[in-house]
Structure formats: structure tokens, C-alpha cells
């Protein structure tokens, strides 16, 4: 009825209008009241029912938790000297997500921090590839002035994070690159795996390679935290509380730091590896692979110039040759083979006549000395490295016994070490060949293997273990981590008489009528015993091994121990494509000298470094300067260098199945004559029978 009145059209008189007004004011009032109740209940809903949720959100607005990256545990050498430590420094990072105008900010940072054009370009490259909250390092190790210049301009530099912190420092740089590895900002994959917010904290680095990676959890420590009250624009209003970080635990190695550095420097311009072991305890005193990279400069990601330097270098600085380099061991296996002969009952006085070669089947296998050694017994076979002696008796004793001895002494073995991976190579025997190639073992295979060629592939660490086991007669296991209860090495079970025979012959190599006369230690009263080895890389039809293309040259090997009469230290040196054992034993001599008389050894090194252009670090710096001037920023030649790809490339040496040395070493397989002597022989065999061509 009422509604009809409102609804009805002719509300024409003032009285009717007044009635309608009164009704409609009531409607208006009711609507207002209704909305008021709605608002009140909404208010109550938000502040009572939803209170907890919004309180939490207000709190997470207000409080900003900043993680303080923990100081990484130190890596110490056996005497407690740091191989990797932390340096307090000023650093500046950017968080790509928070950048407003990336180009402008980068250019401004370039000015404030006095970056070079190359550094600015590198930074832009890194930013292009970066995503999200992963911080990108602009520069670390800043001085106070430059750090302050950025800090005071922070309001104009959104996304820029200046920090006082600690950065990893490797005092000896490249010398420990392969041993310890390096640290770097966590990659996206690493963050995916471990959603730890610490990983995206600016300034935090994780271990990327070597021991740094393997002992990540030990070295990491506990991050500290700072709770601050911040405004919406990120300005810190006040500190709420701070929890100190707990530094990571130190890692105590068996490595002798100065020796490690000395060995690395002594390798000079060569590509090679040096392993030194304590032959009582198995402690690894030095484990060097050169050329290397400087882990200090890897920490902030690789720049384009560095990347080009590394990828241009055919010496493969990113490969750890101690564990990942596989080489045919050449004649360094001869003491081992001799020991196998003795164990099999061969008398050391049994001799054969070396006329410069031996016919096996329808082929002649040459001795390195084409003139022949005349009558050769075991000692002479070792110290003169006569191949014919070993060709002859190996056929009598058989490959199975030799292979068993090789394995007992460590060849083809993987050792329980905290490393990313080991390429353990091959000790061939008839069963192995049947399994791998489906072919019968042939006599020429024995002949090849007995002088460390053919299928035989080892890494330098195995050679060092072999040397120390021969030296001590103990079942030495290599150790890298110091402390704990030292396992008492068991005896290998060799008769001392046999060992003495081999030791005497190896002593003769250096100190007598042997192949390494110049390896004699310049330390009175300490005599070193050793064995040379030269391993052919390509057939004689391709190269002679002494000169020509670097990658066609022979590998040089030397294994040794000292003092000869009371073995304490054993070492193995490999010079990749060094042109023969002559490249290896002087290094072994100087490294061994360093253990007994550091001063004398250092004098020799310093003299040499003058000719090489300084220490490895100085040479790298010079090379960097050269590359920078050569290519500069505009270098289009540089591969796309996302942080990830650079890191992936750095990981390449530890990639599981990469054993690139294998192919090189097997290439010369059809060529049976190995030890190439200074007067090079003409063609090896007049008619190489097709039957002896190795499969593949």
C-alpha cells in the first residue's frame, strides 16, 4: 500500500510530495543505517577474526631479517698455515630484482668504484644472465673511500647493497686452485636444491670445486642474523637484535703448504702434475696440477677476459691432472714389473741379451736404445730402462702376474679421498681385454703393457702411491685430511730382499749408471732413487716425440723416493708432452731438494722464474693485461658467459666420463716401439703386420 503510493505516478500535490519525502527519507536513513552496520561488522571482522593474520603481515612488513654470511672455515696445511683464509673486506653487490634502471645504476657504480670498461661490461654481462634475488657481485676488496662513496648515495641506487664482510683468500692462489677448488655465488640450481635463504644472501659463497665443495657443510658454519626495523622504502630505522655468526670449522690438510707452492711454481711453463707423499703415513704433502687458475679471481665469477684466457689455453688449466689426467706411464712401471718378476721367482741375475730389439711373432719390438744394451740383468734392465729385458721376461712370466702386481701397487685403483672424482685408468689383462673388446690377449699386448704403453693408463696420484709402496714395502693409502688416528700401514708382504734389489736399481738410475744422472740431489747425505719414463703419444709416422707440435710430444715421467736407504718421501712427476723423462726428473729433483734444503731449492727456482716471467700469479697478471689490451670490451670472440656456463665449464674436469687423455694415449697403439732415444730410429718395423693393429 505504502509502496504503491511511492510507485504511483501522479504525485502531484505539495501534500503528496511531502508524504513521499517523509517515506523516502526513512528509506534513505535505513540504507545509511544498514551500510553503517555493514561497515561496523567489516571492521570487527578485520580486526578480530582476521587479527592474527594481519598482525603477522604487519610484523613481516616491519621486521627485516638480514642474514650475516658466516665466515668460512679455514683450510690449513699440515703445520697450521692457512691455504685458504678469509679477508675482511668491503664489497658491493647488486640485486637484479630491485634494480630500477639497471644501465644507469651500473654506469653510476662504474664511476663511483672506478671500474674499468671491461669490468663494467662484465658486470652488464652478469646482470643480463642473472635473475631474481640472486645477488651479483660488483666488486669486492674495495678501499674505504670507494665503499663510502657508494654507501652515501644509496638512496639514489636502489638494488645496490654495500657490505662489510669477509671474502675468501687463497694466499698462494693458483698453486692450490685444483687442490682446494674455489668458492662462488650459489647458482640457481644449487638454490633450487637447497632452499636455504643464505644462498641468496649477498656476499655468501659456496664451495664450487675441490675440497671447498666436498667439505661445504663443514666449512660453511652458521649464519648470523640481524633483525632490523625497516620502512617501506627499505630504510633501516633501528636494530632490533643481532646474532653473531658461527664461523665454519677449519679443515686441516696433510699438505705441506710451502712445498705445494714450490712444486706449482717449479712446473713453470709446463703442463704437468707433481704428487709428493710421505711413504710412512701416506700423507699427501703436495698435489699440484699446472697450469691452474687463480681461485681468488674465480670467487666473483669469471670475467670475459679471464674466460678467454682459460679457453684459449691448450694446457687446459681447468683440468686437475693429478686426479683427472690419464697418461701411459711408460717405463716408470718397470720397478713394479721387476717386483712382479721377483715374486714370480725370477732370479735377479737372470739375464738376456739386448741387441736393440726383440722379435715377437712376425714383428720386431725395438729397445729405445737401437744399438742394444748387450747383456742385461734385472738391475741393468731398470737403471738402463732396457725394454728388451722386459719384453723377454714378461713373456715368460705372463701378463696376469704383472697386472696383479700393478693393482697391488695402486695402478688402476681409486683411493678413498675427499675429491670430486678420480679417473682411475686401466691396468690391462687378458680378462679385461676380452670383456672390453672381445679379443684374445696377444703376446704383443704383454710386451706393450710391460713398458707402460698400449692400454695401460694411470694418473699421477697412482704413480706416487706406487712409488711409495715400492719405497716402504707398506700398503700406503694416500691421505689428505690431517689428524685422526693415523692408520698403521700394513706390510705389502714383499720380501725385503726383493725390495732391496729394486731400490738398488732405482738408486743406480739417479746416482749411478742410469738414465737420470742429473737428478742427483744437491743435498749431502741424501740420495734419491727413481725411475724415468717416456711415454709416446703419437706414432712415429706422425711425430718424433721430441719436438714438433706440442701435443705430439712424448709425456715425461719420473717416480722417485728419498732418502734411498731409509725412504721417507715418495714423489711422482708428470710433464704432459714434455718431450720425455728429461723434462720430469729435474722437477722431481728440485721438489725433493726443497724437502731437505728449502733455501737451495728456492735459489734454483728464482733463477728459473726470471726466464719464465715471474711466478704463476705474475705471469697470469701479465697475460691478463695483454688480453685486456688485445681484446678489450668489444671482444666479440668471447663465448656467452653466463655465470652458470662459466661455472659449468670450470666443473668440466670433474665431469664423470671425461677421460680425454685416453684417446691420445691409445692413438699410437699400432706402433710398438716406444722409448724413443735421442738418436731417433728410422721407421719402426719394415712391414707392420695388419694383425697387430689394435682394435679401435
Amino acid at each position, binding site marked *: 500500500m505504502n509502496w504503491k503510493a511511492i510507485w504511483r*505516478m501522479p504525485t502531484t500535490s505539495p501534500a503528496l*510530495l511531502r508524504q513521499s*519525502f517523509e517515506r523516502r*527519507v526513512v528509506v*534513505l536513513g535505513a540504507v545509511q543505517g544498514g551500510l553503517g552496520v555493514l561497515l*561496523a561488522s*567489516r571492521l570487527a571482522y578485520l*580486526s578480530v577474526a582476521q*587479527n592474527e593474520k594481519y598482525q603477522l603481515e*604487519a610484523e613481516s612488513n616491519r621486521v627485516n631479517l638480514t642474514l650475516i654470511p658466516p665466515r668460512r672455515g679455514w683450510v690449513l696445511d699440515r703445520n697450521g698455515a692457512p691455504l685458504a683464509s678469509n679477508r675482511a673486506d668491503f664489497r658491493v653487490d647488486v640485486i637484479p630484482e630491485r634494480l630500477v634502471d639497471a644501465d644507469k645504476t651500473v654506469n653510476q657504480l662504474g664511476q663511483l668504484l672506478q671500474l674499468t670498461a671491461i669490468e663494467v661490461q662484465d658486470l652488464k654481462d652478469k646482470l643480463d644472465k642473472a635473475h631474481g634475488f640472486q645477488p651479483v657481485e660488483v666488486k669486492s676488496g674495495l678501499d674505504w673511500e670507494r665503499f663510502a662513496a657508494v654507501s652515501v648515495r644509496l638512496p639514489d641506487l636502489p638494488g645496490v647493497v654495500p657490505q662489510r664482510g669477509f671474502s675468501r683468500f687463497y694466499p698462494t692462489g693458483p698453486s692450490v686452485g685444483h687442490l682446494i677448488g674455489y668458492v662462488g655465488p650459489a647458482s640457481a640450481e644449487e638454490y633450487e636444491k637447497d632452499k636455504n635463504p643464505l644462498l641468496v644472501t649477498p656476499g655468501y659463497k659456496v664451495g664450487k670445486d675441490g675440497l671447498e665443495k666436498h667439505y661445504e657443510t663443514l666449512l660453511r658454519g652458521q649464519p648470523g642474523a640481524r633483525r632490523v626495523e625497516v620502512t617501506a622504502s627499505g630504510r633501516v630505522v633501528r636494530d632490533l637484535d643481532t646474532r653473531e655468526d658461527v664461523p665454519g670449522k677449519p679443515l686441516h690438510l696433510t699438505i705441506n703448504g710451502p712445498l705445494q707452492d714450490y712444486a706449482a711454481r717449479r712446473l713453470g711453463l709446463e703442463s704437468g702434475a707433481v704428487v709428493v707423499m710421505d711413504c710412512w703415513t701416506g700423507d699427501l704433502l703436495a698435489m699440484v696440477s699446472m697450469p691452474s687458475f687463480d681461485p681468488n679471481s674465480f670467487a666473483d665469477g669469471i670475467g670475459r677476459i679471464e674466460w678467454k684466457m682459460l679457453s684459449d689455453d691448450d694446457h687446459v688449466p681447468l683440468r686437475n691432472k693429478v686426479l683427472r689426467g690419464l697418461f701411459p706411464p711408460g717405463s716408470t712401471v718397470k720397478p713394479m714389473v721387476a717386483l712382479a718378476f721377483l715374486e714370480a721367482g725370477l732370479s735377479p741375475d737372470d739375464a738376456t741379451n739386448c741387441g736393440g730389439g726383440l722379435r715377437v711373432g712376425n714383428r720386431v719390438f725395438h729397445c729405445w736404445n737401437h744399438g742394444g744394451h748387450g747383456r742385461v740383468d734385472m738391475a741393468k734392465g731398470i737403471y738402463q730402462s732396457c725394454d728388451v729385458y722386459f719384453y723377454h721376461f714378461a713373456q715368460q712370466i705372463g701378463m696376469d702376474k704383472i697386472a696383479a702386481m700393478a693393482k697391488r701397487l695402486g695402478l688402476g685403483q681409486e683411493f678413498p679421498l675427499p675429491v670430486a672424482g678420480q679417473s682411475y685408468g686401466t691396468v690391462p689383462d687378458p680378462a679385461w681385454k676380452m670383456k672390453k673388446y672381445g679379443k684374445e690377449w696377444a703376446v704383443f699386448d704383454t710386451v706393450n703393457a710391460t713398458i707402460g704403453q698400449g692400454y695401460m693408463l694411470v694418473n699421477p696420484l697412482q704413480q706416487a702411491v706406487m712409488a711409495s709402496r715400492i719405497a716402504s714395502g707398506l700398503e700406503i693409502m694416500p691421505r689428505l685430511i690431517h689428524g685422526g688416528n693415523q692408520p698403521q700401514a700394513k706390510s705389502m708382504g714383499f720380501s725385503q730382499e726383493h725390495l732391496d734389489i729394486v731400490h738398488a736399481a732405482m738408486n743406480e738410475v739417479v746416482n749411478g749408471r742410469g738414465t737420470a744422472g742429473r737428478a742427483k740431489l744437491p743435498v749431502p747425505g741424501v740420495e734419491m732413487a727413481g725411475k724415468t719414463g717416456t711415454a709416446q703419444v703419437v706414432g712415429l709416422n706422425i711425430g718424433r716425440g721430441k719436438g714438433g707440435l706440442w701435443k705430439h710430444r712424448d709425456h715425461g715421467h719420473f717416480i722417485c723416493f728419498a732418502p734411498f736407504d731409509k725412504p721417507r718421501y715418495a714423489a711422482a712427476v708428470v710433464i704432459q708432452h714434455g718431450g720425455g723423462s728429461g723434462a720430469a726428473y729435474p722437477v722431481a729433483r728440485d721438489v725433493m731438494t726443497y724437502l731437505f734444503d728449502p733455501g737451495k731449492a728456492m735459489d734454483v727456482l728464482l733463477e728459473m722464474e726470471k726466464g719464465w716471467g715471474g711466478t704463476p700469479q705474475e705471469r697470469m697478471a701479465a697475460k691478463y693485461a695483454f688480453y685486456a689490451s688485445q681484446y678489450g670490451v668489444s671482444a666479440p670472440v668471447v663465448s656467452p658467459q653466463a655465470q652458470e656456463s662459466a661455472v659449468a665449464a670450470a666443473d668440466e674436469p670433474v665431469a664423470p666420463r671425461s677421460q680425454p687423455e685416453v684417446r691420445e694415449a691409445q692413438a699410437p697403439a699400432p706402433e710398438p716401439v716406444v722409448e724413443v732415444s735421442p738418436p731417433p730410429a728410422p721407421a719402426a718395423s719394415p712391414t707392420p703386420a695388419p694383425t697387430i693393429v689394435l682394435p679401435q
Partner: protein
Amino acid sequence: MSRSIVPATVARQPWQVILPLTALVLFGSAVLYSAAGGHLQPWALTHVIRFVLFLAMAVVMSRFSRELFKLGSYPIYFAVLILLVLVEMLGAIGGGSQRWLNLGFMTLQPSELMKPAIVLVLARFFDALPAPMTSSWRGLVPAGGLIAVPAAFVIIQPDLGTALAICFGGFVVMFLAGLPLRWFVAGGLAGMIIAPLAYFFGLHDYQRKRVLIFMDPESDPLGSGYHITQSKIAIGSGGIFGKGFGNGSQSHLEYLPEAHTDFVFATMAEEWGLVGGLFVLLVFFLVLRWGLGVARKAPDRFSQLLAAGMVATIFFYAMINTMMVMGLAPVVGIPLPFMSHGGSSMMTNMICVGTLMAIDRWRVRPSGLS
């Protein structure tokens, strides 16, 4: 008792509205004091000073006669309209977005003045319109024109909130003037059809975004949805009794945008909680109830329509603002009367209050014929 002590002119004032309003303004200035980090400047003190000035203005207005209001209605409306056109042109010439005039102690937005002016002119229009014409097109078309022209100028500024307020005030007067209900129903239907069209073709991108974000604030937590999200956090985190005076983290740490103007309710609710919010709503309830009472008791058609229109204008401000801060309405730039810092809105709302006070007096001392 009070009559004997207090002078008659003082006693005659409508204290039942002045006291709640003063309480609300003082409460508002306390909130502004806290929002300024515990300082009277720049907001709290000017807020009170303006209120005192405009209250004086309202008291003066309350003594104006009905005839003066009637006489002034069209001139005021057209004067404000010209000002509106003028600032629009100045803004266009200056190439900037200045839509206000600087009066020294405050800046004046002509669009603000249009809110009471539209109510005044429509009340006058329907007052003069012969009763039988109310339900014919002659009642609708001129009134519609009076609303549409200023609304159009405000909307191109662009200031959607104020344009809506002008329309709302105008429509309420038309509704109460007794225009046939089916026109409003038809208008409502037309609006439902036009709204989506206007949304897609009429609104600016940023306005469209605001509507979208109102529907789903979490879709853009760092962009425009930020306002609503942060406002809800502020209100919700306050709880029943609030975080305490001066302890609002959302406003003090600048998470809450416009903490002293459009979102002052959220600033208040964070520190005073549900209790403070209900107090504010209660004051508005008292003021609006008094206003509607004045309208119902008004002696004649002009005063009725004028009073109810003024109430609707204040109501629209308060409702849209509180709905906005609580996430029930899109973000439109409308301040909360008597709480938000800002001269123009304080002036507009005090003009409305002053007009209501005047109408209240006309009832006591009727002048002229009804």
C-alpha cells in the same frame, strides 16, 4: 539550569552535533599527531585550526535566512561552475594537473565546492518547480543537466571520486523531491548496462586497474593493490584495542600510503583498534541522524531537500572512504570527513554542517511561508 548561566546565543547552538564533531576532530588530530611521528606539525595543529575557523563559518552561516540561501543558490552554483571551468582551462594551459587555487592557508578545489552547491541548486529548483511537473520530463531534464555539466567537468580532470559524490548528492535530492521511482529503477538498469561499457571505453587505464585490483587486491601486491592490502593489514593488525597511541608500525614505517589523508581511518584503527573505529562510526551515526532529523523536521520543501542533500553528501564521503580502506570499495581519492588532513574537504563538510544548522534554526524561528 544551563539557560540561566550560559548566554542564550551559546545555548541555542546545536550542541548535540557540535560536541561529537569536536570530539571526532580532536581524535582525528591525535591520529595526525601520531602519524607525524609525535609532532603537531605539519598536520595535527592545522587540522584543529581549520576546524575552529570553519566551525565559526558554520555558526555564521547558521544565521543566514532561508531567503538568502534561496537567492544565492543559482549565483553560487554558476560561480562554482565557472571556477571549475577556469581551473580546468588553467590546468590545460599550464600543461600540468593543477586543479586547485592557492588561498594561502589552504588550497581550494572548486570541485569540492560543487558538492554542496549542487544540492543547494537542486533544492531550489524543485522548490520552485510546480508540484504537478515533478513527475514529468520538466522535472527530470533540467535537474539532470544541472548535475551532468559539473560532473562532466570534474570527470575529465580526472577525478572520479568527486564526480561520483556530485552525482550522488544530486540524485538523492531528485529522489527525495519525489521523482517517480521507476525513473530511478530505469536509471539503475541503464547504469548496469552502461557501467561495463564505461569501464571498457570511458575509464582511464589506471582507473580500470583500480577497479580490477579492488576485485582482487592480492593480484598486484606491490602495485595499486598495495594500498588496499596495506590498509587492511593496518586495520586488521590493530585488533580490538589497537597497538597503542604512537605505536602504529604500518603508518610510521610508511607502509600505509596517504596515512594522513585518504587512509587516515586505517592509521587510526591500527593504533586504536576496533574501539576507535566504532567510535568514529558512532560519531558519524550521531551527526547523520541529527542531520536527517533536521531534514524531517524542516518547515518547507526547500529546507527539506537542502538538509537531506547535505546529509547525503557527508554520508557519501564517510561511507566511500571507510569502505575503501576496509577493502569494500575501489581506491578512489575521497578523504574521511573531519579526520583526514585537508582543507577542501573540511570546508565542504563544514558548509554542509553549517547549512544544516541554519535549517535547524529556520524551524525554531520560521521565516517566510512554507
